[in-house]
């Protein structure tokens, strides 16, 4: 066989392996979830009680925990990632300061999540505790709010670095067209740059969300790991809780019978689907955006 052919086949083979791995993971997740699906049914998703000792498994508290931490993190992170995108994309696109800032922001994504967990535990938790004492909720320090704060920092680079790139891509004739009509810089940003990049910026937010939903280590360290839902909204936000990822991380070592372990794996399956779907939608929007 000719070397050209061999080389090409090696490339194809390597690529196919990666696809197979993802499919393999999905198959394992589904297969291992079967005992749980069989014994718990679809009610697993909205069961409010998670009590492995009595063999009762309900995913609802973790769904709520995951969605709440992620969305609060998203809301906190959006102003930062948009501000950074606009500043580094439009106001200061070149030069050492711009590069320094852009690299620093990208570095945020490179810091191992255990370090965020540590930092949160030793620095953020005491501050939150004081804050919670002041507003009159039980001063746990750990919980959904604290996790969301750390998550917000961790996900900023995903939306921001895409946002910077997209805003730099806005054709300058368009911006000049607006300037030539007497628009101010703010008006150019509002009426030309924002409409032009809106869908792309939204895709960046979706990528951030995908990252937030699945983040495990830092959240596990900060969320408090309680599988019961608080009764009031205030206690829910500021009290300890659990996400799908954190409950899996915490409990899989002690899952001592089939249904327990299978229920955890089913949680993983749900998480897998949610993050994959969100990422796919995000990528789809980006592709459509960059093709235009």
């Amino acid at each position, binding site marked *: 066989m000719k070397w050209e052919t061999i080389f090409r086949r090696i490339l194809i083979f390597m690529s196919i392996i990666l696809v197979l791995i993802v499919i393999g993971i999905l198959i394992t997740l589904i297969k291992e979830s079967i005992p749980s699906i069989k014994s718990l049914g679809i009610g697993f998703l909205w069961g409010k009680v998670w009590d492995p000792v009595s063999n009762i498994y309900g995913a609802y508290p973790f769904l709520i925990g995951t969605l709440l931490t992620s969305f609060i993190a998203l809301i906190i992170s959006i102003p930062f990632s948009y501000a950074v995108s606009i500043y580094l994309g439009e106001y200061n696109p070149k030069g050492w300061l711009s590069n320094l800032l852009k690299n620093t922001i990208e570095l945020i994504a490179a810091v191992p999540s255990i370090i965020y967990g540590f930092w949160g535990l030793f620095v953020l938790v005491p501050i939150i505790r004081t804050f919670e004492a002041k507003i009159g909720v039980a001063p746990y320090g750990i919980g959904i709010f604290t996790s969301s704060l750390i998550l917000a920092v961790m996900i900023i680079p995903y939306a921001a670095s895409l946002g910077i790139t997209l805003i730099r891509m806005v054709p300058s004739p368009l911006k*000049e*067209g607006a300037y*030539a*009509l*007497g*628009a101010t810089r703010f*008006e*150019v940003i509002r009426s030309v740059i924002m409409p*032009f990049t809106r869908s792309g910026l939204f895709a960046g937010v979706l990528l951030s969300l995908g990252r937030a939903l699945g983040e495990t280590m830092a959240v596990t360290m900060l969320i408090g790991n309680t599988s019961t839902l608080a009764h009031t909204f205030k206690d829910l936000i500021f009290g300890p809780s659990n996400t799908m990822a954190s409950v899996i991380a915490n409990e899989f070592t002690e899952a001592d019978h089939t249904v327990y372990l299978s229920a955890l794996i089913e949680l993983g399956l749900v998480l897998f689907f949610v993050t994959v779907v969100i990422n796919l939608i995000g990528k789809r929007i980006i592709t459509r955006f960059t093709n235009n």
Partner: protein
Amino acid sequence: MEHTVVSASKFNAWFGDNHVVKDVSIGIEKNQVIAVMGPSGCGKTTFLRCINRMHELIPGATAKGSLKLYDDEVYTMNPIYVRYKIGMVFQRPNPFPNLSIYDNVVAGYKLNGLKMAKADMDNIVEKSLTSAALWKEVKDSLHKKGTFLSGGQQQRLCIARAIAMEPEVILFDEPTSALDPISTSSVEQLFHELKEKYTLIIVTHNMQQAARVSDKTAFFYLGELVEFDDTKQMFTAPSDVRTQNYITGRFS
């Protein structure tokens, strides 16, 4: 001269250390079409962009000297106001892709948040599109996106957008270089009609175009204004040997 609309004296412009417009003095009269020509890199586009202060939007770009709109010094006026009074049409048609034809025409008002009655706005749209010789072609599709139009129509839409602001002067930066010959001639025809109300300053690469459309021609070379005279005079008997060489095609 009371009819002078735009005048420069000892006007200079730089990109960083690069001196691109050197000591230019010129007086441009009302309701004339002025062609600005010269080889690439001669500073003609930069000079044009200085007139409505677009030059300074580029980081590192500076300008010095006197440049007046009537009796007012452009560089002490609010740049926003300068750009209301001095409109601009670019090399490539650049209608706003997210706006309809209608909204593109009134984009200048909308961008600046100026509120106005629907009827007034309709009126401005019709008038501007008519002046830009586009009304008949688009009057039934005003709410379609401007980017669906052909290149020549898009450029006329951009002209309508500039006219809508009722400027004194309209600057054209090689307005037909991205257009096919038919669209080019329709835009050139428009210049003759527009000069009844406005003063037009057109940067062009194309000498035939300068000869066809302009009353007066300015020839730039290496940042200097070499010659500024009636177009006929300039093309038949230029007074400077550099102009002569350029016109006869000895360099380009």
